[in-house]
């Protein structure tokens, strides 16, 4: 690439990057402004008088908007579901990748077929099932139903299929049973895939919106997404508070993304291609 073309190339890419980054940066900046300054026309670029008062309001123990509680609920729900997905999907994927049994093809195609079932057809019946189980307005209702991740099974099965058979065969000769092979051979070899799935499952649950909005009723049981919706209603004119809430909801996923972005992007592309 020539020098001039190189400069033009990077200018274009950076300009485009700005489009993706600027709104997020604006969210962070606004969270440090006063309500007055946040709505000034024309807007100021940097806070004239930086303040953490928006965060103080959020953490100030307002019983209608217990943001710290929402944050912890989100953390619990997302990590709980991620863990559950790892356990049940890896076990199922192991059976589907490494064992022969009758009905295997049917089971696998049924799982894959549900990847294409629109989620909204399940919302109303699942609401009633959750109600029957006594999980409405609780974290259980957020953790358990989504844990049957078809993507998780599919993704891990692909990975397990690619693992060398030799180690497994050696373990069989030493008299290891299937559970021992699974926990001592397959899982340790699959750390990158398991980590990827954990991150994707965490992100999915952390960001879910429609389900928590309808199955959670009490403010103290909210996760951040429905919480943000109520912040928008409650502090309609206090944009720094809303932006502070949005920043809090973004920080864990942005950190997670920066740490694991190579895996996330790989996971996404893999799921897309061979789906």
């Amino acid at each position, binding site marked *: 690439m020539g020098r001039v073309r190189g400069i033009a190339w990077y200018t274009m890419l950076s300009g485009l990057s700005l489009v993706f980054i600027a709104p997020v940066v604006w969210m962070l900046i606004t969270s440090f402004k006063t309500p007055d300054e946040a709505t000034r026309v024309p807007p100021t670029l940097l806070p004239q008088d930086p303040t953490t008062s928006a965060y103080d309001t959020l953490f100030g123990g307002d019983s209608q908007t217990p943001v710290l509680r929402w944050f912890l609920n989100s953390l619990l729900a997302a990590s709980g579901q991620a863990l559950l997905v790892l356990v049940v999907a890896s076990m199922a994927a192991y059976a589907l990748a490494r064992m022969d049994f009758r009905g295997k093809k049917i089971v696998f195609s049924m799982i894959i077929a549900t990847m294409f079932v629109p989620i909204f057809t399940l919302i109303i019946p699942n609401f009633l099932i959750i109600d029957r189980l006594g999980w409405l307005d609780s974290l259980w209702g957020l953790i358990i139903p989504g844990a049957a991740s078809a993507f998780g099974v599919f993704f891990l099965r692909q990975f397990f299929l690619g693992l060398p058979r030799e180690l497994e065969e050696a373990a069989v000769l030493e008299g290891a049973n299937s559970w021992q092979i699974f926990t001592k051979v397959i899982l340790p070899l699959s750390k990158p895939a398991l980590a990827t799935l954990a991150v994707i499952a965490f992100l999915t649950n952390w960001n879910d919106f429609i389900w928590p909005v*309808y199955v959670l009723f009490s403010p103290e049981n909210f996760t951040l997404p429905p919480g943000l919706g109520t912040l928008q209603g409650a502090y309609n004119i206090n944009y720094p508070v809303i932006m502070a809430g949005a920043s809090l909801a973004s920080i864990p996923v942005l950190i997670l993304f920066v740490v694991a972005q190579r895996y996330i992007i790989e996971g996404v592309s893999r799921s897309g291609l061979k789906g």
Partner: protein
Amino acid sequence: MVDVLAEATTSTSAPVAAAPRRGPGLTPYLFLAPYALLFLTFTLAPAAYGLWISLHDWDYLLPGKPFVGLDNYKALFSSTSPVFDFFWQSMQATGVFTVFSVPLLVAVPLGIALILNRSFKGRTVFRAVYFAPYVLGVAVIGVLWRFLLDPNLGAVNALLGAIGLPDSTAWTTGLPWAWVSLVGVTVWWTLGFNAVIYIAGLQDIPRELYDAAKVDGAGRWAEFRHVTLPGLRPVLLFVVINTILASSNMFGQAYLITQGAPGVETRTAIMYIAEEGLRSYRMGSAAAMSYLLTLALLLISMVTFRLFRTKD
């Protein structure tokens, strides 16, 4: 599951060819069991349960839930029923959103993917940057863009004003602006997702095909038309179908940014189904709506498959 269990009890006695020392017996089913339990309870059973609900006058708050046959479905096609206008209004909203967002979300990410697939320094950083908004979730991007697009004090109008363009567009409350906002925000938000899928697809196209095209004296455009596009066909099909399904699910953006405004014009099908079923508790009617929407999507997906196949 019933199937699985039935298999489990019979297969122990079934002869297994070349089994090392012991047949698989029950073991595979035990490994599948935890997943199967969740899958049965929260995917398979609700899919069937929803159909059952749609055949009843299922008011969540009332004890009696009389069987009404196809009445809930008929109501959706009868212009005198109370749900008729709202339902088709919401289907139309979903349709408008899909028609405008899908072409953009198929074409723009392809362009970005072609750019980001060339080799240059810092390529991974740019890929990450373009993908980043996608990890933020609809709640965050919803409240963020509601603020940025505020007609009076939002940064978007301020920016437009600063460069001498009209600065009082009703992005969240007027038509067609509300649609421009919803489509624009969605493209901004999810473009990286499709781009990443394209990039993976581009890398699977054998290099030799490009070399052969060069030998034949193909230019950039000919190369794109005769090597890249055909090579991307399966990926393209996935992206199109996936994007249609995602668009038909559009909820959070409209819920948070336009709140259906100006009236109920931007209230999408999912928004209306959720309101009818989970706010007004008329679940039979809402379930019927969701199955009708599913049927529509199934037809659209089949047509898309066809279109891609007949291009041979």
